[in-house]
């Protein structure tokens, strides 16, 4: 039986700049189940990255309900949001966002250092496991700038999974990579999905989108279509 991980209901996001009001997201309702592999696509400025930011608690909605693991997280404190991001969510960014002053191991360990329940040895073990999973153990003492783009993104993936989050959110994970490296990163995500990870990915690339099980299309801040690769049922947004 599938278990609901995330439930969005009537989510709206409005940006105010000077006197201009921009509706980035308009009445989004979406459910993400545990083990889902979702791609979100759409043209530039359609609101897909905003949606990912809301899902990742990097931003707050203007209206609507957000439930994560059956808890309402729409109006929680900044501190609580930070805790949830740390424990439940793993991020992969288009531009990797590794910290150049930290080496590979330290970059991966970073989210674990914000937890109080882990000893140093436990952290080291988790980092080692994540490094092995992305096949980058041999580069553990390198600095980000000493790595290729593909390698940096694999490190970013390791950082996203090291804390064993409930969901991995990826924002254009192959956007800065060549096709060969992009393929390698996508295979890594596929592998993580097969192992049970829940993944939600924003992408422009149709080939990447096809790897996901559920494909959601967004236009002008609204979900306009959703396709499930397994059932191949197109669902028009309400």
């Amino acid at each position: 039986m599938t278990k609901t991980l995330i439930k969005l209901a009537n989510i709206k996001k409005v940006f105010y700049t000077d006197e201009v009001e921009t509706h980035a997201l308009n009445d989004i309702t979406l459910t993400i189940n545990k083990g889902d592999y979702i791609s979100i696509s759409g043209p530039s400025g359609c609101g897909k990255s905003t949606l990912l930011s809301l899902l990742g608690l990097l931003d707050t909605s203007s209206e609507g309900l957000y439930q994560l693991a059956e808890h309402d997280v729409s109006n929680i404190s900044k501190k609580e949001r930070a805790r949830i991001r740390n424990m439940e969510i793993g991020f992969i960014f288009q531009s990797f966002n590794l910290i150049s002053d930290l080496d590979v191991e330290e970059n991966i360990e970073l989210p674990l250092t914000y937890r109080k329940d882990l000893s140093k040895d436990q952290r080291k073990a988790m980092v080692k496991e994540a490094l092995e999973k992305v096949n980058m153990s041999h580069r553990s003492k390198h600095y980000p700038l000493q790595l290729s783009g593909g390698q940096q993104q694999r490190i970013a993936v390791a950082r996203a999974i090291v804390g064993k989050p409930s969901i991995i959110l990826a924002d254009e994970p192959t956007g800065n990579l060549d096709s060969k490296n992009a393929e390698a990163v996508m295979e890594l995500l596929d592998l993580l999905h097969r192992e049970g990870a829940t993944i939600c990915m924003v992408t422009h690339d149709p080939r990447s989108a096809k790897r996901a099980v559920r494909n959601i299309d967004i236009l002008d801040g609204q979900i306009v279509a959703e396709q499930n690769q397994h059932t191949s049922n197109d669902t028009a947004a309400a």
Partner: protein
Amino acid sequence: MIWQDFKYALRLLAKKPGFTVLTTLVMATGIGLSVYMFSFFNTILFKDLAFKDGESLVVISGSLNGERDESEINWLDYREIQKNVQGLTEFGGYKNTNVIVSGRDGAIRYAAILAQANIFNLTRTKPLLGRTFNAADEHIGAEQVVVIGYQLWQSQFGGDKNVIEQSMRINGKNHRVIGVMPQGYLFPRNAEVWLPLRIDPSQLIREQATGIHGLAHLEKGVSMADFNRQLNVIMQRIEKQYPQTNSGISAFIASIPGSGGAGGEPVVYTMHIVAILILLLASINVGNLLLSRALERGKETAIRLALGAPRSRLITQLLWESTIICTIGGLIGFLVMAWGLEITEPIVTTFFAEPLAFWWDFSIDSYTIKLFIGILVSTILVTGLLPAWRTTGGDFNAVLRDGTRGALGKKAGRLNRLLVISEIFISMTVLIAAAVMVQSANEQTNKDIGAETGNTLVANVLLPETNYDSVEKKVQFVKQLQTQMQSYTGINEVMIMSSLPGHYSAEQKVMLEGKEYTKGSNNSYPRANYIATMPGDLAKLGVELRQGRYFSSSDNRDNKQTALVSESFAERHFASESAIGKRFRLVAKETGDVQWITIVGVVEHTIQGNRDGSAASVPSIFRPYTQAPRSRITIAIQLTADNSHVIKLLRKALQGIDSGLASYRIETYQASNDRITAPVVFISSLTALFAIAGVVLAASGIYGVMSNTINQRTQEIGVKRALGADERVIITEFLLSAVKLLLWGGIPGILAGGFMGFAMAQMFGTGMSALVTIIVVMVSIVVISVLISTYLPTKNALKLEPSQALHYE
């Protein structure tokens, strides 16, 4: 092409007027303050005298227990030096004095010197009229002759060209004018009258020999430091031979301007270091602001490089900005500095009762201009080259590919950390050193001199030996003056002393009864201020009695010789017993008889002269004026009427007693004391100004760099927040990095500032607890500035949602 780059730089600066004004003012402050400080000290201490061979002219002065001052050296020591040293030629000696010239405008006091004949040759200066001294003029019993200065010639003789051979009444005696010196000639400091120095060759006993300032030319190739080592060896040998008179006494040479700063080296060096640090601080701030701007334009630079622009061209282009900012800022600073120098002279004039030294001309000279140009070029290079080199040396391909992210980030981060560390170091050093200076000035100004100074007018009178050649005459004059003045309405009390508490006093060496001062004993004669006072005057001035009694009318010449001593004297020499009844006698006898002087009372310690360090703790001996009269007296008048009325009464009284006498330096007692601390107050005010500039520059600079650094790390903050770091974690992390920078810059800063502060504290007698308090307070100011400079920009960066921070450019 250069013109094109210049116009482009101007356009860029015009686009951001706030930035341009800020950086220009920062540079104006840095350049203006530092050039002023260097120029000020060069004028008073370092410039060569404007005579032929002026650069090799040196003065030989005495030092006591390693402390250099401008004191005279014993005539016999001077002779020994003259005989034994190598490296000095053309010796000439002199003594400072004051003379009363009676002329058509009444009696006027002038600064004078008693000079050996050679003194004029040392300055290679010929008289405007007549001749200078020759060897015959130095003989005791020779005709009284005088060489006069240009100003005196104008005022007393109306510039009469036939002045030579005319007679002039000096100190009540006729002198034949033999020469007039050219305008502006006041050698060796501010003399207007030169009299021949006549030393009795029979002065063969050190205890009786007069003191003298030596002058000579340093031979080419001999350094002052080397010569002083040689001089030290000679003086040590003399000290071994004559421990009673020469214990702790040495001598040193310095340039004539430089001798004025003798003993004040820690202050002079500190001020110079502070000036350099302020300039460095200003340069770092402007350099950092230019670097931030250059980094902002990193993409533009990368595009230019991609289009084939040579690196040198880009560096030149970026250098134009710093050239324009530093030049405009420098010129503003230069103008303000010129104004500062102009108002310095009238301010400094108030510090001295005498005219200023003749070389103290506070104006823009060639040294100032050369220094300004040197500093300007250095600041252009320091502020411009680093940003130019840094921004044109990065991986331009990475910049083009990734926007502002890329290889520059990490290097810029390192540079920013280095800048903050430098600012912390400099600000702590400057603040600690300046605060010690200000504290010491404050202590000196508020030091208890041992007397009440309120509502009192003081004036000096010089009694010429010609007319007042006996004790009786002097005592009679003083008694008559005191009685006369006290009979006037508007006057409460009239006190007459050779030197009032707070004022400089002559010192005497004494022999204490019961102590051995033979050659073998190695005991040196104790020194003390030696002050004559009329009975009852110490009590009237508020100098409290601690033990025994004050002087009374019975302490006169016919009875036993008596003295009061300060409690510092009693503690130093009779620590375990009462000083009352103890006896001493003077080393240099005032009369032919050997007379024992009995201590009849102990009064509170009075400070005579400098308020700092060991000078303030010199003990004092007071003698009844009736037993130990002096030629130079100070009258203190407690008044109920206004000053001008009392001055008229004083002049009237003097005229009534002796029309040949002049009163001089008439001012309030408080003003006369303030004048003594005025130089240190002035220097400390200057230092405080530097410190305020330093704090503003450092705080704004640190805030600028930190804010810039944190701004550049906004994305990183976004990443960390995305990974689960909450605000507290981020703020703590940034504050901890700031603490690391504080440790890197602060520890050397505390050491450097503490070292300079300690040197000054030693010199001024500032206590260790005050020094530690100053260090703690100043360090706290810098720590708080750095933490605020970190907290506020971090808090600002945290105002962005993590999603915005992640995409922050």
